[in-house]
C-alpha cells in the first residue's frame, strides 16, 4: 500500500515539476530586483490582463427604452379618472334645519319656537361691545397679523385671556378648528414622539398628520393605557431623550363628553418627562369654580401644562381660538404657526366679544353655578332613558348619549339617532344634534346624541326636554 502511495506521490510530484518547469521556462532566469521570478508571473500577468479587460467593460444595464411620444399620448388618452366625488346618495342630501333667530336657549326654526341645546351662556352683554367694535373697526381685518392685521383689540384680548387664565401670554387664532392644526405642527416635527388619546377630534388628528411626527394612540381616557404607552415609548427608545415628547389630550372630549383626569396626566408627564398639549375648547368657562377650565377643576397649576389651546366658539360665544402658555411657547408660534402667519386675523368685533365674555364670566360667578346645576339636573333627568346611556362625565357640559345596543355599524347607529332628533324637533320642538362624523375622521368612538347645556335653560325647560326625549326614544326605538 505504502509503495503504491509513494509511487503515486512521485508521479504527481514529477508531473507538477514538469508543469512548473514549462511555466518557468520563458522566465527561468528572470530576476527582478534580486528576486527570481517563477512561472506564476505569466499566470498573474494573464489574470491582470483579464481583470483590466473586465474593468474596462461597461457594467450591464438593461436597455432603457423611454416611452415614445406616441405611447404617452395613448396612455393619456386611455386614462380615465374617477369622478371628482362619489355619486351622491340620499343621506348626503341632508340639510340641517335653518335657524331664523339667534342661537339662544330658545330659537325659531321653520317658524316654530324651539328649545335648543347650544350656546352655553346665551347672549351675555356682548352686543354693545360688538356694536361698538363694528362701528369703530368695520367687520374684517383685511390682512394677516403680520401685515397690519393686528388691531389693538387683538392685543387686548390676548392679554385678557392670559390674565384670566394666569399665564404669561396668549395668541389668538382666527378660527377654532385651525388653532390645533396650526399649533401642533409648530411644535412637533418629524421624529418627535406624540402620545394621543384615540378619541381626539379631527382638528388634532389633522394637526398630528401635518406634523409628520411619530404618533402613538392610547385608549380613550384610560390612564393605565397612557402609562403603558409612555413606558413603551420611552423604555426601548434610547433616542427618546433627545426627542421632543408630547401628550395631546382634550379637557372635555368632543366625541364622548368625558373629562380627562389632568392630575394623573400631570403625574405621568412628570415621571416620563413629556410635555402636555391640552385642548380646553369645551371646558373654558365651564369647569372649575370660576370657569378657568380643567386646570382649575383638577387643581393643577396652569404652568404645569405646557400648551393650552381652546376654541372660543363654545362657552365664550364668539369665534376663533387661542393658545396660551409661557412666553417662549407663544412667541415661537408667532412666526412658525401657519394658521397664524398665513391667515387673516380674527375680525376685531369678535375679539372684543371675547374680552366682554371673559369680563362677564369673572363678574358673574352665578352663571357658572347655574350652569353646573343645570348640568347635574339634566344628567339626573336623562339617567334612565330607555335604550340610551350617558357616556359623558356628570360634570361635563356636553351630555353625550349613546345607544345601549349598537345597531351594528356607526352608520346604522347614526341613522337611528337622527330619527330620534328629527322626531323630537317635529313633535316636541326640541332641537338636539347627533354627532355626525366626517369620512376623513379617524375617531372610532361610538356616535351619539349631544346635548349642550346652557346656563340660560330653566329647570322646567330641562324637565320638559327630558320627558320628550324619553318619549321619543322609546317611540323611535320601538320602530326599529
Amino acid at each position, binding site marked *: 500500500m505504502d509503495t503504491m502511495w509513494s509511487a503515486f506521490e512521485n508521479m504527481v510530484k514529477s508531473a507538477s515539476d514538469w508543469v512548473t518547469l514549462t511555466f518557468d521556462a520563458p522566465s527561468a532566469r528572470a530576476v527582478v530586483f534580486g528576486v527570481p521570478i517563477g512561472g506564476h508571473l505569466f499566470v498573474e500577468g494573464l489574470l491582470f490582463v483579464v481583470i483590466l479587460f473586465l474593468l474596462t467593460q461597461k457594467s450591464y444595464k438593461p436597455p432603457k427604452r423611454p416611452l415614445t411620444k406616441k405611447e404617452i399620448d395613448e396612455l393619456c388618452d386611455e386614462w380615465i379618472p374617477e369622478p371628482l366625488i362619489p355619486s351622491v346618495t340620499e343621506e348626503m342630501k341632508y340639510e340641517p334645519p335653518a335657524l331664523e333667530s339667534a342661537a339662544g336657549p330658545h330659537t325659531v326654526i321653520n317658524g316654530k319656537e324651539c328649545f335648543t341645546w347650544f350656546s352655553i351662556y346665551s347672549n351675555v352683554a356682548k352686543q354693545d361691545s*360688538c356694536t361698538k367694535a363694528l362701528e369703530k373697526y368695520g367687520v374684517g381685518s383685511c390682512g394677516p397679523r403680520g401685515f397690519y392685521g393686528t388691531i389693538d383689540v387683538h392685543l387686548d384680548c390676548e392679554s385678557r385671556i392670559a390674565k384670566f387664565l394666569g399665564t404669561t401670554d396668549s395668541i389668538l387664532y382666527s378660527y377654532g378648528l385651525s388653532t390645533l392644526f396650526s399649533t401642533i405642527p409648530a411644535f412637533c416635527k418629524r421624529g418627535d414622539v406624540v402620545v394621543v388619546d384615540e378619541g381626539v377630534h379631527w382638528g388634532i388628528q389633522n394637526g398630528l398628520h401635518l406634523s409628520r411626527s411619530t404618533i402613538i394612540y392610547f385608549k380613550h381616557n384610560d390612564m393605565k393605557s397612557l402609562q403603558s404607552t409612555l413606558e413603551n415609548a420611552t423604555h426601548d427608545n434610547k433616542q427618546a431623550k433627545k426627542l421632543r415628547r408630547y401628550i395631546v389630550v382634550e379637557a372635555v372630549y368632543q366625541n364622548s363628553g368625558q373629562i380627562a383626569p389632568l392630575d394623573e396626566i400631570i403625574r405621568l408627564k412628570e415621571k416620563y418627562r413629556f410635555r402636555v398639549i391640552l385642548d380646553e375648547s369645551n371646558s373654558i368657562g365651564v369647569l372649575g369654580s370660576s370657569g378657568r377650565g380643567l386646570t382649575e377643576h383638577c387643581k393643577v397649576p396652569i404652568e404645569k401644562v405646557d400648551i393650552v389651546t381652546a376654541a372660543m366658539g363654545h362657552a365664550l360665544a364668539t369665534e376663533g381660538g387661542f393658545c396660551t402658555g409661557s412666553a417662549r411657547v407663544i412667541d415661537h408660534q408667532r412666526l412658525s404657526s401657519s394658521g397664524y402667519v398665513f391667515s387673516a386675523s380674527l375680525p376685531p368685533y369678535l375679539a372684543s366679544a371675547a374680552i366682554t365674555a371673559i369680563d362677564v364670566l369673572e363678574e358673574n360667578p352665578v352663571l357658572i353655578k347655574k350652569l353646573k346645576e343645570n348640568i347635574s339636573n339634566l344628567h339626573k333627568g336623562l339617567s334612565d332613558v330607555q335604550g340610551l346611556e350617558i357616556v359623558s362625565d356628570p360634570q361635563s357640559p356636553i351630555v353625550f348619549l349613546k345607544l345601549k345596543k349598537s345597531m351594528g355599524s356607526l352608520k346604522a347607529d347614526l341613522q337611528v339617532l337622527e330619527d330620534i332628533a328629527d322626531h323630537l324637533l317635529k313633535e316636541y320642538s326640541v332641537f338636539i344634534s347627533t354627532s355626525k362624523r366626517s369620512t376623513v375622521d379617524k375617531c372610532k368612538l361610538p356616535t351619539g346624541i349631544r346635548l349642550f347645556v346652557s346656563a340660560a335653560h330653566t329647570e322646567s325647560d330641562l324637565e320638559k326636554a327630558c320627558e320628550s326625549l324619553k318619549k321619543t326614544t322609546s317611540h323611535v326605538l320601538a320602530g326599529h
Partner: protein
Amino acid sequence: MKSEESSAYDVTLIDDNWAQEVFDSIIGNTSKSWERLDAGSLVSHSFELESKTKTVYYGAPALITYRVPTRPKLQEAYSTPILPVKILLEPTGSKNIQLAVVNFTGISLLPKALFGSVNNFFLNIVAEKRRKRGRVKTNPLPPYFVVAVREFLSPSLSTLPRTDRIAVFHFKMITIPYLTALTTYFSYGLLFAFGQLRDFFRKTVDWWSHSTLQGYAPICLGLEDFYIRRLYLRIQDCFNRPISSPPDAWFDVVERVSKDNNKTLNRTTRVQRCLNLGSYNYLGFAAADEYCTPRVIETLKKFSASTCSTRVDGGTTTLHAELEECVANFVGKPAAVVFGMGYATNSAILPVLVGKGGLIISDSLNHNSIVNGARGSGATVRVFQHNTPSHLEKVLREQIAEGQPRTHRPWKKIMVLVEGIYSMEGELCKLPEIVSICKKYKAYVYLDEAHSIGAIGKTGRGVCELLGVDTADVDILMGTFTKSFGSCGGYIAGSKELIQYLKYTCPAHLYATSISPPAAQQIISALEVILGEDGSSRGALKLARIRENSNFFRSELHKMGFEVLGDNDSPVMPIMLYNPAKIPAFSRECLKRNVAVVTVAFPATPLLLARARICISAAHSREDLIKALEVISSVGDMVGIKYFPAEPKKQQLEEANRVKL
C-alpha cells in the same frame, strides 16, 4: 379719421432667429390678436423666453409684425429690448394707426421719433452698429419691452393720455443682478456667522448656569429657531405693527418702543396716521360703510355674534343659506358652501376631495393653506413651475404615463391647484391655458381666488371674468371674503352634487363653528353693492377705481425704475428689495414718512427674494397714490432699490416738444 370701433389688431413676434440666438425656448404664443381696442384701453400680452445664459443680454431688435384692418399688408416694425418708454408720434397723413417703436438704451441714445418702416429699419441699423462698436452703453435685459400701438384720435398730442394703446411684451425673467445677488448672499452669510457666534456665547453661558429643564428636549432644536432669534428679532418692528383703526386708506399705526434691542416691543399710546398700502382692502369695504354697517349691526342684534355651534348642529341660520345662494350666483356656479375661515377652507376641503392614490399638481408658489391642505390629504403632490402651463403639461404627461409611484397603477384622479392672483407675486394666473391643458388631460381644476374675487374683472367676478374663462370649465372655485369684501371666511363653489358631498363630509362643515352672522351679512351687503343691487353705482365705481389705481401705480413705479413684479390689472405689486438690510430700511423709512408698507421676508418668500408689497385699494384717492409714489421714490433712492434706470422726464419733454414743432 376717428372711429375705429371694431378692428382687428395682430401683433406677432416673427423673428425666430433673434430669439433663438439668446433664448432656449419660447413659452406661450408670440402672437396675439385683439378683435377690438377701445380708446384708452390698455392691453397686454406676454410670453416667456427661457434664457440660455441667465445673465446679461445685449439684444438686437426683434421684428414684430402687426396687422391693421385698414391696410392689406402685414406691417413690420422692429423693437429693441428697452425699458417701457412711450413715445408719441405725429400722425402721418390720414393713416390712423401708427406703430411707435422706441429705442432707448441707457444714456447715449436719445429717444427718436421716427416714422414708418424705413425709419424703423434705420433705427434697427443704428442700434445694431452702435452695439457692435460698443458705443452703446448696454443694460441688462429689462424685464419687458414695449411696442406702442397708438391710434391718434386727436391731432393734438398733448391732450392724449400717455398710455393710450400699448401692446406690452413681457419678458418674465427674474434674474437678480449679479452684484445684488452677491451682496445679498454676503449679508446673509454675515448675519448667519454673527448669529452663530452669539449662539456660541449663549450656549457657554447656559452651560454654566444649568438653567435648562432636565430631561426635556428643548422646544426648538438646533437651528429651528435660529432665523427667529438671530435675524427676525432684529427687524421685528417692521412686522405685526398694531393699528387702532379700521384698515382703510388711512389708518392709525400704534407706535411701539423697545427697551431691549427689539427683543420685546411695547405698545405706547401714541398713534401715527399713515397711508395704508398693506391691507387687502381692495374694494374699500374694510371701514364702516354707509350701506353695509347698519345691516351688519341689525344682524348682530337679531342673530348675535356667534352661532356657537357647527353648521350641522344648528349653526345654520337663514342668513347662511342666503349667503350661500348669493355667493353661488355671484361666482357663476350652481351651488356654494361657506366656512368661517379662508385658510381652513383650503386645508379642510382638499383632504375630502383627493386621497390616497390621487395626484395633486400644485403651482410652486401656491399659498401655505393649499400646501397644507395638499399635505393633509395623503395624496401624492407634484409641483409645476410657477404659472408655466407648458411645464404643467409636461408634468401631467409624465405622471399619467408613470402612474402611481412604485405600484404604477393609474392615478385615481388628478387635481391641479392654482391661484387667481398670486399674493406674493402679484401675477395673474394663466387660466385659459391651464384650463385647456387640464381639459385635454382630464385633470380637475381647483382655483383659489382669495385675492382675485371681487378685485378684478369687469363686474368683480375674478380672474375667470377678466381672462374670459367659462366658470363651468373650472371644477372647483374657492375664494375668501377677507379681502375684497372686508369680512372673514371662505367659500367653495361648484356643482350641486359637489357641494352636497362636501356638506356631508367636510370636517370644516361638521366640526367648526359656522361663520359669524354679522360677518355673513357684511358679505351679502358687499355683494349687493358690487352688483349694484343697493340702487347706486358705487360698486361699479369701486371696481373701476381699483383697476385705474392699480394700473396707474404700477406704471408709475415702472417709470421710476423699481423692479415691480406682477401683471397689469392686479392690485398687488411687489417691489423687489433683495438685500436683508433693505427690508427694515425701506419699511422704517416709509413709516417715518407716514406710508405703511408691507415688507415680506423669509417665511413667506424665498430667502433671497425679499420684497416690499403694495396692495392698492379702491379707497385710495389719486392724491393718496401720488403722495405714496413720492415717498416710495425718495425712499427707493435712499435705500437703493431702483434696479432699473428710470425713464428720464426731461428727455421725454424734449421729445414731446420736438414733435410739436
